[in-house]
């Protein structure tokens, strides 16, 4: 079975600032990391591979990302965490992609890999959209489930998952191939093994340009993106208010009165 994991390289902190002079994001000195949600996706892919091995079936995990050449670091880290192969979609023509164009490019890359199962994190911590996973499923025409919290069963043709919904969970059975986006609850990612680190060092990263995945220029990058960001700005700053100190019972009384004033009670 072929398993793929889509990852994104994101800044290590979301405490990004806007330069007051230039009104653009300050990117200097910000380290990058694998999007935390994608680590759960990767871990689950590796676990599925291990589970299949127990069932006597071989599987390989390919990790894929779209980004600048520096995104190779994220792919190597993914290999240290258990992925077997890595693909980097990198081309100037991809720059400025919104979620439509991103999911298109990733789907084109995935189509070349032809996986039976695709894992994505539920969203990325920089963009916070959650739109790319379901978008990929449509572009590549696979079955799809979002917010998956548990994989109950997997066979060659079918997978049964439990997914998070507003008021609880839903158990769903999907035909393979399928795209799953996962939530944090699904597992606890491992730390890299020594062998993993060695693999990461010597791994060959496959790099595909737009032409390698037959992605026409008008469907990728800025040109292929229906949405346009016209302005970025800092949100209104929230100031801390009054601070109360004193004996617990006094504080509790004061709080109760406050809640009454606020008409919560």
């Amino acid at each position: 079975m072929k398993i793929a994991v889509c990852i994104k390289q994101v800044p290590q902190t979301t405490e990004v600032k806007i330069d007051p002079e230039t009104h653009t994001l300050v990117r200097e000195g910000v380290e990058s990391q694998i999007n935390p949600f994608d680590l759960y996706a990767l871990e689950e892919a590796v676990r599925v591979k291990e589970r299949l091995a127990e069932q006597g079936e071989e599987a390989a995990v390919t990790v894929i990302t779209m980004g600048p050449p520096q995104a190779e670091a994220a792919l190597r880290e993914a290999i240290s965490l258990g992925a077997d192969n890595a693909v980097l979609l990198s081309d100037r023509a991809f720059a400025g992609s919104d979620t439509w164009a991103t999911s298109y490019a990733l789907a084109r890359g995935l189509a070349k890999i032809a996986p039976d199962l695709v894992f994505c994190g539920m969203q990325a911590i920089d963009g916070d959209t959650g739109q790319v996973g379901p978008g990929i499923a449509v572009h590549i025409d696979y079955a799809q489930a979002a917010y998956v919290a548990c994989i109950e069963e997997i066979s060659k043709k079918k997978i049964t998952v439990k997914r998070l919904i507003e008021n609880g969970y839903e158990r769903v059975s999907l035909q393979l191939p399928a795209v799953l986006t996962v939530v944090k609850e699904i597992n606890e990612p491992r730390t890299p093994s020594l062998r993993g680190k060695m693999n990461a060092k010597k791994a060959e990263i496959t790099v595909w340009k737009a032409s390698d995945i037959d992605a026409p220029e008008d469907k990728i990058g800025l040109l292929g993106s229906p949405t346009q960001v016209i302005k970025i700005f800092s949100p209104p700053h929230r100031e801390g208010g009054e601070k109360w100190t004193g004996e617990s019972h006094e504080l509790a009384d004061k709080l109760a009165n406050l809640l009454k004033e606020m008409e919560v009670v």
Partner: protein
Amino acid sequence: MSIKVSPDKCNGCTLCVKACPQGCIEVKDKLATIEIDSCNFCGSCVSTCRFRAISIEIEKQAKEDLSQYSGVWVYGEQWRGEIAPVVLELITAGRQLADERKSELAVIVLGNNLDKVAQELSEYPVDKVLIYEAPELESYDPERYSRVLSDLCKELKPEIVLAGATTVGRSFLSRVAVQLYTGLTADCTGLAIGEDGLLHQTRPAFGGNIMAEIVCPYTRPQMATVRHKVIPTSPKAKNGHKPEIVRLNVKPKLFGSRSQILEFIEQMENTVNIVDADVIVSGGRGIQDPANFALIEELARALGGAVGASRAAVDAGWIPYSHQVGQTGKTVCPKLYVACGISGAVQHLAGMSSSDTIIAINKDPNAPIFQVADFGIVGDALEIIPMLTKKIAAMRGQS
């Protein structure tokens, strides 16, 4: 695509040089010069330039006549006949947008046995209630639902489509936007019609540290999912208001699906649904023990609210993940957020700092949570909370 600097407008101020993340702009003889091979057309220089000297030209235009699209659609998300609270908020937003565009507001519902839902929605200030009813649509199925809504958009051509940024709304509209090759903006906190007649969508990114304004100029419909509780709930319409209830023609050929729902596991306690709650009482590491979460729960119940938690409390296994507030949990904006024993890591603040009022109880006077709290109580949450719960019970007893 091309990028140009107008020599008439540029005075060589070097602001764009500082703004360029690629480092591909130089000022030569008081004129910004862009190294085209390294430029990735990110637009940073364009928005920075105070003299509007730089322009990116995208050879892009609409592929069809956009004026054939009109009207605003709100997706009427419902669960077994219960309308999701965010729908009523979307009606407020949709009404404004439709009025400004001098067009109609419709709420569109997909599902089964929708008579009660249709009736209820018709009491709100909408012009039409569109009903698409079939047993196959009983519950949300990604493939069926997106195929149906895409088909309806192609046929009826709404200009704007809004849905709640719920677990369903986000994945559902992503699929529809891809099928229609149009733009979708996730988790918006502001919507307005600009002077250009476009839907200007404002949304937080980077955990709320940055706001972005986004438009979708060349394709229709313009689609957005909208965050819970940032728009007030719509009041009911005045007496005599009677929107048309339209039963749409059902096309069973759209109902193919490769997934099958086996079971729902409902979590009944009303202290769980934190995104819809007006009051949230949250506990963190300072609660010290899973058993102490009962204190949080009692206070939440006394206030008619839901129970939240910090990542630390969830990771320690004190409370299930569905309660987690913050970057890797849920984003909430209740009227009142009470943070108990939560230090306030940036990841937590990202999920709750847009709450109307924040009360924080923490022993450490220097805890970062106090920087966003309207009322900071320096004290032991484990002592104060039970006293407060008792006090509230007594106050309720009196009234």
